[in-house]
């Protein structure tokens, strides 16, 4: 059906045709110049791009957590180092440092004046 086959009572066809052209121009000017694609395409592309990144991210996160847990366990239950004084009273086993001769390696002006 042609739109010009809808005559109205009070107007001549020419005028109506002109009106129709104006209406048509108006409404067509409102349309997007390029009809948008289905939003699915955008969503799917984004999803596909994100998926490998998400997988890598998850693996990295899992590895990091495993490392942290392992380190924590190793520190908790691993070999312990106890600072026990040696039987001869030295701070480190096998050494003879007792802190009494510290000034021996100091410059003379820095050596403490003993009473």
């Amino acid at each position, binding site marked *: 059906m042609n739109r010009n086959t809808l005559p*109205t009572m009070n107007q001549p066809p020419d005028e109506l045709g002109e*009106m129709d052209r104006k209406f048509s121009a*108006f409404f067509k000017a409102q349309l997007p110049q390029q009809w*948008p694609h*289905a939003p699915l395409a955008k969503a799917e592309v984004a999803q596909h791009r994100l998926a490998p990144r998400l997988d890598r991210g998850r693996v990295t996160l899992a590895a990091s957590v495993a490392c942290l847990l392992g380190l924590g366990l190793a520190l908790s239950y691993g070999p312990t180092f106890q600072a026990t004084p040696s039987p001869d009273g030295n701070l480190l086993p096998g050494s003879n440092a007792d802190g009494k001769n510290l000034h021996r390696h100091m410059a003379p002006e820095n050596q403490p004046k003993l009473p």
Partner: protein
Amino acid sequence: MKPDLRKPDMRRTEFEALYAMHSREVWALAYARWMDADSAQDIMQEVFLRFWKQLEGQGPKQTTAETILNPRAWLLRVARNLAEDYSKSSFRRHGTQPPEMLGGLQGRDDQPLAKMEREEAFAQIRSVLDEMATADREILTLRYAFDYETTAIAEILGVASSAVHMRLSRARQRLAERLSAAGVNQEP
């Protein structure tokens, strides 16, 4: 044959086919309510995103979605609802549209004089359309934006073809009279 929507590829194909078939109708209803092309496009996208989620819900998990027996009716119903909500929220936020939108002026590379006349005519048409009922605007949009036949418009809007014919005739008559009174239909 009804496509098996449990398969992702079929869902995608079905979705794109329905978008190609009905996106213009959805846009037209949103536009007729709001008289703003950009808002209509936003609403259209939102309608189809929701539709996709519904299709996803009809997949193997069969969790949340209702079964859509009539996609077109579903799309148009959601479009109307969203357009209604959108108009309310937009008016609440902004009160009205900026002046350049009130004239319905889109960027085109016309000569300045022709452009000015065109914009003036469009502003007159818009002001007349703003006073019309949404139902009339729906018919006019479908008719003049997409050149739909009366029968197609009747099918989209779910009314009798004779009713569309009558409303279209009246709407055109009213619009033509008002524009004629405003001198818009005079050739420059």
